[in-house]
């Protein structure tokens, strides 16, 4: 009996601790976005909007919600403030469901309004939505089930990238990364001011075998996440590979996908084991 109570206590402790870590991560992500001028109120009522083929964005657009979010300052400012205050409240009161239930639609609306105004479907904030969904669950067993589900989703996110490349044959395409680099870093490589980074990119373009090797290495990192569907034994390695992928993305592609790093928390053994 005492073992049972201890197990319930430790699971409760793990849930509260995980919720707090995730809330701090959400707050840090939001501060970084505000620093980059990406709060809705900071976008200064952007001119362009593109809902793409996204049915959910169409719905928000037809209801006039997107317009209000982007063009009505009190609404956009309200969203920005909520996205700052709510993670703080979730951190302070991890057992209170209300703050998380309010945070989820707020971050979803921000995600939609930002993507529509950027005219580009960005995936970098996907992790925050998955985390917001998880935080809505306060019963220990449900929380641990959804935690496992988000961990599986993180594996799917990475592994599916490999299968997209396989399915579209770009995995075998000669000079794929070299061609991508020429498009991605066009301003950098044509600029006469040589920097350490532009020299590195030029070096990669001039050495297709090295670029090919990196392309394959990235694909192998993506594929390795398939292990996560069958076992948690290699989670520490997957955690490192997740960050290796994000760092390489920055060093080779110049992409800032750090926000997605919140999903790496789901491979941290201290949390996933205690919640199991």
């Amino acid at each position: 009996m005492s073992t049972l109570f201890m197990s319930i206590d430790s699971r409760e402790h793990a849930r509260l601790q995980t919720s707090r870590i995730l809330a701090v991560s959400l707050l840090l992500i939001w501060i970084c976005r505000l620093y980059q001028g990406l709060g809705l109120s900071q976008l200064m009522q952007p001119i362009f909007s593109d809902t793409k083929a996204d049915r959910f964005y169409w719905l928000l657009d037809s209801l006039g919600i997107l317009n209000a979010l982007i063009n009505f300052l009190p609404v956009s400012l309200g969203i920005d403030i909520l996205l700052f205050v709510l993670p703080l409240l979730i951190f302070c009161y991890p057992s209170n469901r209300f703050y998380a239930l309010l945070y989820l639609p707020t971050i979803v609306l921000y995600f939609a309004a930002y993507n529509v105004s950027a005219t580009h479907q960005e995936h970098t904030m996907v992790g925050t939505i998955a985390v917001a969904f998880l935080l809505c669950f306060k019963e220990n067993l449900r929380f641990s089930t959804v935690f496992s589900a988000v961990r599986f989703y993180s594996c799917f996110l990475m592994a599916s990238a490999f299968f997209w490349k396989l399915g579209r044959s770009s995995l075998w395409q000669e000079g794929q990364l070299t061609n991508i680099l020429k498009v991605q870093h066009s301003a950098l490589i044509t600029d006469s001011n040589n920097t350490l980074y532009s020299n590195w990119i030029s070096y990669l373009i001039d050495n297709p075998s090295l670029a090919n090797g990196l392309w394959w290495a990235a694909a192998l990192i993506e594929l390795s996440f398939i292990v996560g569907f069958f076992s948690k034994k290699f989670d520490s390695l997957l955690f490192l590979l997740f960050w290796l992928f994000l760092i390489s993305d920055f060093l080779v592609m110049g992409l800032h996908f750090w926000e997605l790093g919140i999903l790496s928390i789901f491979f941290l053994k201290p949390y996933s084991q205690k919640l199991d």
Partner: protein
Amino acid sequence: MFWSNCLKRDKLLFVFFLVFIIGQAVFTIKGVETFPFWNYGMYSAITEKPKNIEVTKLIINEREFNLNKAPFSKAYMEYQLSNAGKSENFGLWLKAYIERQADIKVEKALRLHQFYKADKPYQLIRTDEHPIYEH
């Protein structure tokens, strides 16, 4: 293990996850993205060798504005600049945005679209000037 545990513990969540997977499969097969069913191709489309290397530059008050050092998101500005020709009001937005975020008084703004040869040495072939704003 996960599925059997989930079914035992919580049938509602089990159904929710099942519906999510079906939704993801449908949208993946259709090849379109709809919230919350996203596709993570990560540069999976075949990229052919470009015919020319195209560079877009933002010129503010006759000087090139270095987006790498801008006190705002470079990616967001690049998305906006790629649409610049589609609205006459873009100039007013750009002026307001730059003045607030970068604290620079904008008198004149231009978008340069430059075309370079795709191989080294990357020689400039052509430059198109697109006025954005003039006081």
